[in-house]
């Protein structure tokens, strides 16, 4: 109960908290300053290597620059962006189309393969050894991976040797425009499956054993357990793998440069390779920067789409 007859003590009471609040503010400001001081190296790093290049790229995307003389940047408005989609431009088709197909194919293959492998590994002994084996391609240089697979795909290579031994004719995997992109997708999926296997095996470990025990008591078969328990509970790991693999696929450059250089024709030309050519071979940095921003938008939209799709199903990263 409040004593309404008691003398009012509001003034000193408010003065004291004011002093305290001021002191707290000062302390907080000091703390903030110290925090920013500690953050400064990281912020400077981001400013120098992220914000500044991003701003420069934005400037270039609305300019014409040959790449040699910084004083020779001429503003051209949105011409670089419209040029990307103009008649005769190869950016939308086949370059952007190939990029999306490459990323989709890589995600689909790597995801399916790694789910299968991770599930098998989860039931094996020496799991660390298996995970290491599957992770090895990740620590191998892309140039080595690309060149080895290139030789395997050659008309006289290992893959065609197997086909010939089975009585089938040879396939010019990297020289035939119909097989070149799928052939490179297989390599990218193989090379990137290692990290997905790691994430998914970790995900499998986090599935509580009680679910499996309950399923066993109910008489559920292996397939039912996989579809009804394992896969739904793996969804957060799958989302992570899906998003990261898609991002990697959309930005792929090195493997395609090593294996096909975008050929034959433009069958394996992808956005990152096209950007590199525009900037460093043709000296058209404006178009290259505009292409980079278009790719950025594509990546952003697809990633947001993936997140939305998974969140709708009640999962989060």
């Amino acid at each position, binding site marked *: 109960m409040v004593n309404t007859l008691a003398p009012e003590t509001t003034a000193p009471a408010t003065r004291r908290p004011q002093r305290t609040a001021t002191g707290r503010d000062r302390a907080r400001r000091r703390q903030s300053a110290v925090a920013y001081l500690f953050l400064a190296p990281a912020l400077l790093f981001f400013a120098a290597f992220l914000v500044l290049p991003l701003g420069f790229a934005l400037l270039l995307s609305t300019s014409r620059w040959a790449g*040699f003389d910084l004083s020779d940047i001429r503003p051209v408005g949105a011409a670089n962006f419209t040029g990307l989609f103009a008649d*005769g431009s190869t950016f939308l088709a086949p370059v952007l189309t190939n990029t999306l197909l490459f990323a989709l194919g890589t995600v689909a293959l790597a995801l399916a393969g790694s789910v299968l492998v991770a599930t098998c590994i989860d039931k094996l002994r020496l799991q660390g050894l298996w995970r290491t084996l599957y992770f090895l391609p990740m620590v191998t240089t892309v140039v080595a991976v690309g060149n080895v697979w290139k030789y395997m795909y050659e008309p006289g290579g290992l893959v065609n040797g197997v086909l010939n031994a089975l009585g*089938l004719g040879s396939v*010019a995997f990297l020289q*035939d425009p119909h097989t070149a992109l799928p052939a490179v997708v297989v390599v990218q999926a193989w090379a990137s499956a290692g990290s997905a296997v790691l994430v998914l095996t970790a995900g499998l470990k986090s599935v509580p054993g009680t679910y499996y025990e309950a399923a066993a008591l109910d008489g559920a078969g292996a397939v039912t357990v996989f579809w009804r328990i394992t896969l739904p509970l793996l969804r957060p790991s799958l989302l992570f793998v899906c998003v990261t693999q898609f991002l990697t696929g959309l930005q792929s450059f090195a493997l395609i440069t090593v294996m096909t250089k975008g050929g034959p*024709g433009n069958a394996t030309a992808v956005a990152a390779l096209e950007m590199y050519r525009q900037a460093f071979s043709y000296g058209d940095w404006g178009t290259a920067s505009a292409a980079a921003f278009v790719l950025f938008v594509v990546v952003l939209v697809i990633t947001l789409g993936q997140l939305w799709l998974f969140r709708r199903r009640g999962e989060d990263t």
Partner: protein
Amino acid sequence: MTRPRRGLGRRHFALALPSALLASGCAGRHQGTGRPGDPIVLTLLTHYSSGVLRKALQEPVDEWNATHDRVKVRTEAVEFTDLLTTFMVRQAAGQGADIIQPYCLWTGQLVRAGVLRPAPPEHAEEIRRGYSAAAVRAASAAGGVYGYPTEVQTYALYCNTRLLRAAGFGEPPRTWPELEEAAARTTRRDGYGNTLVQGFGLSVYDDSTTVGQTLALLNAAGGRFVTADGGRTALDSPAGRAVFELEHRLVARGASVPGVNVYQAFPSGQVAMVISAGWWTGSLRPLMGADYREVGVAPVPVPAAGDRHATLSTGFLLGVNAACRHPDEAWEFLRWLNADRTRVRGGATVTRMSALQAAVGSLTGRADDIRTLLGRGGDPNLRPFLDALAYAVPEPNGPGAQQAKTLLRANIEALWTGQQSVDQALRSIRRQVDREVARSW
């Protein structure tokens, strides 16, 4: 030609930070100490980065440094694949080399970007007088000469004479019908369809084996890739159509297998004929050993008997950077290297560059020098390339030449691999190349 500069206030402000970043990341360009009496040091950026090429260039540079006290030259070498990128990055950072050795395909691009300095009148006159027309045109842009042509490559037909003889041909083909017949009769396959011997090597391996071959055949048919002013493509012509139809027939009949790397297959005796540049002789000789005697070289076949010979020429030039602080000294060094004559073994007098190129199995645009050097026990297979200097057509080198070449290559590959018909390929090239070439000008 230099474009007039406009007000740069806001632009300078916008660029201040990136420029500072670029500049701070790089050490100052070495120009000597700058103290009175100390020598000026000129940097020379080249793609002669390894093996005999590096050694061949270093020898005259060492000679210059030993005989000149005031101006010294220091070579800096990168791989050819990194050459244009290195020009760009160093130039943007204010670290461009004083003397650069670009591929002639990039001449227009470098001139447009203000990187190459026009040759002073006396040097331009020396270049116009001393070199073949193709070499001079390759080192020129927008009517001006921009450097001394160094290495010049012409294209001719390499033949495996053993395979041709086995198929009943005593001599290399001279016309396209003879070429097609010889290609068909020398082709062999195993039971699985793997090609054992390719009659005529069309290969998607690199620019040289796709665009180089096609343009050599196009020039032999009297056609051109771009118009004389460089403003649009001229490939969609009867000559262009004839070349594409010839290549399409060769692939369709199985005499050419674009998937095979001819640089590996020809030395292994798996390709009977292929069109390539003269530099390849220098690689084939050590690679093939005794089998090299089976290699013959003939002019690029023409569509019909009696047609005039023509082929493609490509090359490099040595020019002076527009940002060079000592252009007179740089041009003087280039004159010494490329125009002054020196006595070589055997008593002949040739330019140092001619001696350098001949030593590595290559040619310069100075036909007399090379003829003199070849007459002293050189490879007889180089003669057709040397003769071709008289009738070769230089590769187009306008501002958008590199992009036009890449677009052409993609469409040629699409034709060879059945993605496009002849009509579609010609239409697509015209549409794509015209757009890019027009933008570049």
